[in-house]
């Protein structure tokens, strides 16, 4: 009798182990960032950052008037300009690791906008700061059906494994391309 129960327990343990192994995430997924999804106009909080994306625009050229030494602001592709407000929740972070995901393609935020830039915000926790995040993408990227639900990933650092990351969905497929867009320095928001 005791042997029979032992055999049943062993089989149950084996099946449970098999089910656990089969349903466990694979290697990369076990250490992937924890994306906190949101839409334009929605305020999303990750561990280190609170983000609101106000809108997206496309442009052939950027106009930077607040610095005379701004570099070449033309592009063979198109500029995607994301207007966003960010608030650092605890310590200080730079946002030079922000990415735009269109389908399987990732585009790193451009550092074309000179200092002061929202990518290197004022070192002030709890203060909302608004400014443009600029991405340079090829025209073909906008032809991808995935452009209708592109995502801006506000990575708080290059190392985002198992960290929460605000991921805001923007529709780039229905936007007209402006000849120029004026880029302004970041501002501290009344709140």
């Amino acid at each position: 009798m005791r042997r029979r129960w032992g055999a049943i327990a062993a089989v149950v343990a084996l099946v449970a182990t098999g089910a656990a192994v089969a349903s466990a995430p694979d290697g990369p997924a076990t250490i992937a960032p924890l994306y906190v999804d949101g839409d334009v106009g929605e305020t999303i909080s990750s561990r280190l950052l609170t983000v609101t994306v106000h809108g997206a625009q496309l442009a052939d050229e950027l106009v930077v008037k607040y610095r005379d030494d701004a570099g070449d602001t033309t592009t063979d592709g198109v500029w995607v300009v994301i207007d966003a407000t960010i608030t650092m929740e605890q310590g200080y972070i730079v946002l030079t690791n922000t990415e735009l995901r269109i389908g399987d393609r990732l585009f790193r935020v451009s550092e074309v906008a000179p200092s002061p830039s929202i990518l290197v915000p004022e070192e002030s926790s709890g203060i909302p700061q608004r400014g443009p995040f600029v991405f340079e993408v090829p025209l073909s990227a906008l032809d991808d059906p995935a452009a209708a639900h592109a995502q801006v990933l506000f990575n708080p650092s290059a190392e985002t494994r198992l960290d929460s990351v605000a991921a805001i969905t923007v529709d780039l497929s229905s936007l007209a391309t402006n000849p120029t867009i004026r880029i302004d320095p970041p501002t501290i928001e009344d709140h």
Partner: protein
Amino acid sequence: MTELLTDETAPSKRRGWWRRSLVPLVVVAVTVPALTFVVIGLPIIDDINEKTVFTPVAQGDSVKAGGYSFTLTLSQEFPGEGTGTDGNQIAQGSSLVGVILEVRPLDDAPPASDDDPLYCDVQLTSRADGLSREWSQVSSPSDYGYGVGEERTTTCSLDRVPIDVELVFLTPEHAYDDATLDMTVGSEGFRFELVQ
């Protein structure tokens, strides 16, 4: 009959199992705590050792470190009234916090060196509501309509020269009430109370 035999032999069987399993049990008893210490305990101890311990400094008191004395002589909050024409260039809901730190060299101050200049590192910090926050000096106080005193500097450089350092921070409104000024000189840390 069978039950009688089982009852009589059971204790000796149990003793036999413990005796046979003594070595593995000792190995488990030693290795599990040891592994737990290595995996969990050592990183915690390292973390504690790496963290600077900040010594509290009461309002108006001076501290000595690295051959200098440091005194927080004045601090004040300037609440934002808005960035429009009727405002004061500080956003509503935000405040500028100004802190003046008096730095005086002592007799044992090390000689100034261009190759390896000495600085004190300062941050405004708060632990209110269980949330640890820190603020670094704003890069350009004049952007917020704040004028640094002519006789003061914004950099805490230790050059064997008496200086008054004026530190300016941008914080959420009322963060001042629970904030402290954390200063690090070498491996020593001090936590100054602000003027309330």
